[in-house]
């Protein structure tokens, strides 16, 4: 459900802003305060994800969604549901429609698209090699401007066999896939599969700042990319958990299944 800004969320957002301000000490970075909540999904209604906000990608796409991924995405509750205040995306090892794994992927395309803003989600990530969950965005013109021309902002990507690391990345024309502009954030004294963490970007004209919890760890500007800056246009949000593929490699015998990606909320501020 898209909730209207209320007093509670305003207080919450203010407190978060204070937190960030206290840590945004790098003078070279452009840090803005975006505290007007324009969209949030708190995942508070049990059942399927809110259809006013999310639709599904089903199946395997082309060549495993372009990455030779091994899962078949479904909209079944065993793969995706809202329960007890959390969105649960569950990857399973099962034979289904000719694939060895199932999982889910939802996107806000055509339902919520935004140009600029502070976008963040509070997520607990899974464990095990081959699991590749992500909180990311594609340009709203992705049907006509073929990737990577449409632009891709990976707010958070994670590999289940690197439990202390996440990646913040942008892909665009001339800097995609292996040549994407990326930076790794490593948790010094904790893991991403044991607790929830907040992953977000502050995105404005000609800059994207990446943060985890209260740590702002990267800024990408047109100066940093080796091609056209394609991020001054609307984007939509994607949440998914891939299994296998070129980037993470296949699950191994130690990968436990089923594994859950738990999302406490997705919030967008302007």
């Amino acid at each position, binding site marked *: 459900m898209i909730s209207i800004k209320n007093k509670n969320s305003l207080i919450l957002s203010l407190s978060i802003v204070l937190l960030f301000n206290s840590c945004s000490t790098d003078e070279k970075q452009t840090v803005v305060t975006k505290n007007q909540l324009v969209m949030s999904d708190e995942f508070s209604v049990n059942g399927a994800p809110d259809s006013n906000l999310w639709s599904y990608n089903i199946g395997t796409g082309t060549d495993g969604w372009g990455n030779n991924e091994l899962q078949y995405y479904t909209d079944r509750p065993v793969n995706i549901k809202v329960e007890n205040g959390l969105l649960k995306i569950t990857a399973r090892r099962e034979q289904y429609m000719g694939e060895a794994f199932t999982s889910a992927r939802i996107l806000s395309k055509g339902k919520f698209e935004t140009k600029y803003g502070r976008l963040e989600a509070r997520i607990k990530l899974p*464990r095990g090699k081959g699991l590749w969950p992500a909180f990311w965005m594609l340009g709203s013109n992705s049907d006509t401007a073929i990737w990577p021309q449409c632009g891709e902002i990976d707010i958070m990507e994670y590999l289940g*066999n*690197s*439990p*202390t690391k996440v990646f913040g990345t942008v892909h665009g024309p001339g800097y995609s896939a292996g040549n994407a502009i990326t930076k790794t954030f490593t948790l010094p*004294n*904790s*893991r991403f*599969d044991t607790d929830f963490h907040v992953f977000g970007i502050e995105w404005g004209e000609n800059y994207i700042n990446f943060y985890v919890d209260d740590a702002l760890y990267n800024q990408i500007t047109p100066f940093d990319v080796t091609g056209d800056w394609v991020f001054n246009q609307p984007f939509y949000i994607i949440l998914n958990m891939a299994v296998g593929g070129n980037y993470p490699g296949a699950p191994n015998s*130690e990968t436990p299944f089923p594994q859950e990606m738990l999302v406490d909320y997705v919030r967008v501020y302007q």
Partner: protein
Amino acid sequence: MKNRKINYLRNSLLFGLIILINISCERDLSDEATNATFPKTADVFIDAPVAMGTDFYFPYGGSKATAWSIDNQVSYKGTASMRFDVPNENDPEGNYAGAIFRVDGAGRDLTSYDALTFYAKASRGIIPNALGQGGCEFGFGEDFFPNKYIASITQVSVGTAWTKYIIPIPDASKLLQEKGMFRIAAGTQNTGGAGYSLWIDELKFEKLGTILPLNASIMNGTNVTRTTFVGVTSVVNGVVANFNMPNGINQSVTIAPAYLNFVSSNPSVATVNDAGVVTPIAAGTATITATFNGQPTTGSLIINCTGTYVNAPTPTLNPSNVISIFSDAYTNVPVEYYNGYWQPWQTTVSNDFSVLGDNVLNYTNFNFVGIEFDGPTVNATSMTHFHMDAFIPGPIAPGRQLRVIVVDFGANGVFGGGDDTRHSTTFTATTPTPIVSQNWISIEIPFSAMPGLLNRNNLAQIILEGGDNSILYVDNIYFHN
């Protein structure tokens, strides 16, 4: 040094808080409060041993005691490392390097750490072989004795470049005053017997926060049934805890039972203590299971207590009148096996046990079993009788037999060849020596009653037959006059 001061300050603050709480409820200081006075020193070896006292190096028996030294030329960081010169396998002073490093003084409070870490490298790559031998073993918690909280990683490979190793602490809340700071064992089983050098540096306890405890298991994850008797203890073993490491790889740690919490399904049959020692107290069945950090473990120890053990009658014959195959009263002749596991028809499994020094052959799932002693064969021409004590704990079914077959391998002294002879003697519930339940059956068979056995100067086998897949205990097998 600065950090340590802060820690002490925090400890004293905590201490004060506990005192206040206790005063308010008018009680003496709890044990937990006094434990806070043990040092929380993390470092074990940095450029020298840290707060280890004077007498801290204790090599294992059979290892080369001089293998350990401090190397001032080689270090990962700082000025020195610990070097272990693993000896050649034919070194008369010991064929491996192994030792514990134990604090000479008060134990340390390690409750605020989650791992022992160090850097290691070797003069050549050390890799365990397919059987897991020849790798290195590292751990802590061994203090000679009782080694209550020992934990080790085994079958570890060490390469020629400095690499960080992490040994997860299974449950740090147990380590309130630990003296066993480090243990190491390294051999040459997979280097063709050739020695090598192994360096260890920056050895310390750390709070990493990046280790995820997974499951643990007892009895190596299997359900083990053990037939035993009142007062005959068993120990839970094969305790392994698994951890997902910061690099995403699962690491298993062999740990002491004391890290687990045990429970008996039937405390009136068997009790279990904190160290996993199981004591049967009455006939019946009890299943011992465990939890690790509050989570159930896989595997169990099923105690099948058959009551109070009654020893077989103690033999009274003079040893000079006896050729013994199996008895604690005599010196036994060389026996190739007490269970040949003859395939494909044999179901009998040996679960031999010992009750206060009395060894007993325990044939479970018994249908038939062969005992062989042909190296050399036994010349019993001066003997007149065969003796064996048998005990059947279960009921005797109608028609149940116990057949005792004595086999002579003949002049060629080996099985077959046309010269083997044998005689089978059958015992039932109605024979002069009846088979009974829950009482020792003393079987005496004169050679004069074994017409099928043409010779007895190359005796080589005893075969027991007639089992109904129940249990048979056997003791005191001998020839005598």
